[in-house]
């Protein structure tokens, strides 16, 4: 992607404002990373706890640049046939059947096997050309004329073999297909990789990326996020609910509530016409924030104090 085509990414401040206009409130660090990734043409490896907006970052960047978002969801057993390309076997077979007679015409008058093969050679490897290539997400991203955002989601779920497959794409933006040769990206796509840290990503992959760690946001930042996503919530309630979620994150829970859960909770409180937090309200809606029965039970005892603290904060 050329920088003159995308004035939205000209400076860090512009990126921040641009994101904000799409409802993605980000810290300065996140904007810096997007700026650098674009300027240096490097992929970003985004790490952080679930639900802090890793995937959302890629989506918003795609919206901001108005380019297609091509997403590859990783899982165990993902291989190149599903990530890179596959030959259209059916089409190849169909064409050979249809062209059988044509083949007969072609070979007419050829003396012996050697000459027939010689004649066939003149027509090259038609069946292994780009027409018979089924592009999968990675190849598709390389083929976009005007650039694309490539999101490789949860790369830590894939196998080590797949990681090595990514290396060529991430450093040179090209794909080698044995039958055709090397396909270079028409326009360098912008690549986001996300990881939940369920296993260590190899050093080779890390080395090729900018490393961005998104932690849970500060109280101020999270309030701004709620303000932009659920604007109808009363200012006092907004402050209280964010404070409460932050105090929940301090506890030792199986799954701490993420930003997306805070947003959901704000929406549900809005539906219940609440204008401030109280213990009963929190207790009845706690299942929006906490997804494990154990967590709900263990917080139950401290609920009164936590609600009081966040109400007075």
């Amino acid at each position: 992607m050329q920088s003159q085509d995308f004035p939205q990414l000209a400076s860090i401040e512009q990126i921040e404002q641009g994101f904000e206009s799409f409802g993605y409130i980000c810290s300065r660090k996140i904007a810096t990373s997007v700026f650098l990734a674009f300027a240096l043409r490097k992929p970003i490896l985004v790490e952080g706890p679930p639900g802090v907006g890793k995937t959302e970052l890629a989506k918003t960047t795609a919206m901001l640049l108005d380019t297609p978002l091509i997403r590859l969801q990783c899982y165990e057993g993902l291989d190149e046939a599903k990530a890179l390309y596959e030959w259209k076997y059916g089409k190849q077979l169909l064409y050979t059947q249809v062209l059988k007679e044509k083949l007969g015409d072609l070979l007419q008058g050829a003396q012996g096997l050697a000459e027939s093969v010689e004649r066939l050679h003149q027509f090259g490897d038609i069946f292994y050309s780009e027409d018979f290539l089924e592009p999968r997400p990675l190849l598709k991203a390389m083929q976009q004329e005007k650039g694309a955002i490539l999101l490789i989601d949860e790369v830590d779920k894939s196998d080590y073999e797949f990681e090595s497959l990514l290396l060529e794409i991430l450093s040179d933006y090209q794909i080698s297909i044995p039958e055709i040769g090397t396909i270079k990206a028409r326009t360098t796509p912008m690549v986001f990789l996300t990881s939940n840290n369920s296993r260590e990503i190899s050093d080779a992959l890390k080395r090729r990326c900018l490393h961005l760690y998104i932690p849970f946001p500060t109280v101020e930042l999270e309030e701004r996020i709620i303000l932009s996503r659920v604007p109808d919530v009363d200012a006092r309630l907004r402050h209280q609910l964010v404070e409460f979620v932050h105090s929940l994150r301090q506890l030792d829970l199986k799954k701490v509530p993420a930003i997306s859960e805070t947003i959901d909770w704000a929406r549900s409180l809005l539906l219940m016409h609440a204008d401030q937090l109280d213990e009963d309200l929190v207790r009845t809606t706690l299942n929006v924030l906490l997804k494990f029965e154990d967590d709900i039970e263990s917080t139950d005892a401290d609920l009164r104090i936590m609600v009081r603290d966040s109400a007075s904060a």
Partner: protein
Amino acid sequence: MHSNLVSFIQVLRSRDVRVSPAESLDAVDVAATLGYSNRSLLRDGLAMTLAKTPEEEVIFLQCFDRFFHCELADFNPADSPQTTDQDEPPPAPGSGGDAQAQDGDPGDEVSPLEIAARDNPILQSLLQSPLMQSLVQNDRNELTVAMTQAAEQVGLQQIQMFTQKGQFTRKILDALGEEHIRNAVIALERAGDPALVEVQRYRDILREQVRDYVEREYLLHAEGKTRQFMDEILSKTRLNNIEHMYLHKVHELVRKMAKKLISRHSRKRRHLKRGQLNMAKTMRKGIPTDGVMFNTYWRQVRKEKPQILAICDVSGSVAAYAKFLLLFLHSLQDVLPKVRSFAFSNHLGEVSEYFNDYPVEKAIELVNWKYGGATDYGNSLMDFAKLALDDINSNTTVIILGDARNNNGDPKLEIMQSIYQRSRQVIWLNPELRRSWGTGDSEMLRYQSACHFTAECNNLKQLERIVDQLLKSIE
């Protein structure tokens, strides 16, 4: 500025942040893109290329703040907290004369010295030296530059050990021309001059600043090296000779070694051996191609996960070693999912659940407390046979750690032999030197006959090598 960035990367490397040359190039690109004017922006940007984990980021931020320490050294002789006031703008270079007027304090204090200098030749010549002049005028720019130059001249960046700090401080002071002040102090002392106190104070301020500077540079360049040296020594020391105060360092070291082993061995986690042809799938996948089986599909051979039984002697003589073996094995959860541990001295019990319920250090403490005592191998082996002999199969590796000193009791060799026959391998680690095996009440030579592999194991290096071999053998 690039050379500055490169030496910053050197500092990071000495702190165990791995930075490859390619990443250094990226860092240079980042710095060129972001510019050097905005400090926090540059810090964020560099952090993204140089630090690859949250832990590394913490180290990075610490080093960044130390390295790009932009504060000027303060030579203001006012001995009040005012000296720490960093907001005070440094005097512009070249306007040295005006600098003393910025604060009432130094201006007032200079005059008595100057007055005294009028009828004192020693002071007069002293005040004319450039160092003293900038000191008296508190020309911080000038002094900081002089100090940095002096440090470069004496090669301060080569500092390796904390013992060199004093030596480098002296060298820098000499290079700055401190001997003028020193000589003046001696002369004034002899003469009993009242100006002595004032001059001494300037000297002390200068010394303190240089000492601080050396300290900062030491922390930056040498602390990492000293630590590497320390780690090297610790990993070669006999484990029960390590002083108590270093134990937490050893724990860190074990973790680091375990991490290395994990990354070395976790790659081969998936077993790719091809099994029988999966006929059904091959036919099904052949349907689009008119029944022509383009691709063949194979079943995978599932390999049983290896099981490890670690039996540790926790009696006084061996407890220190057992601790580290257990620490090692339980730090390897990622590559050794099924570790069961047993501890014994005169009787034996399974201690695996301690490791599930508590952090490793705490668990080891509990184990030592519960099973410590005098050793009885025979009895303990019988206990083990009752507990786990039936679980031993051809996937089981049994690791025994002990000195095999049985206090002249019945060794129960037959139990060892049945373990030997059932298991995949039996490894015996003995912290004693090989030549003392079999001496006195040691039953090692007899037990050795029922082991696939025996090794002397009394420092971390040996332990690491053995665990590495173990991981290789069970893949």
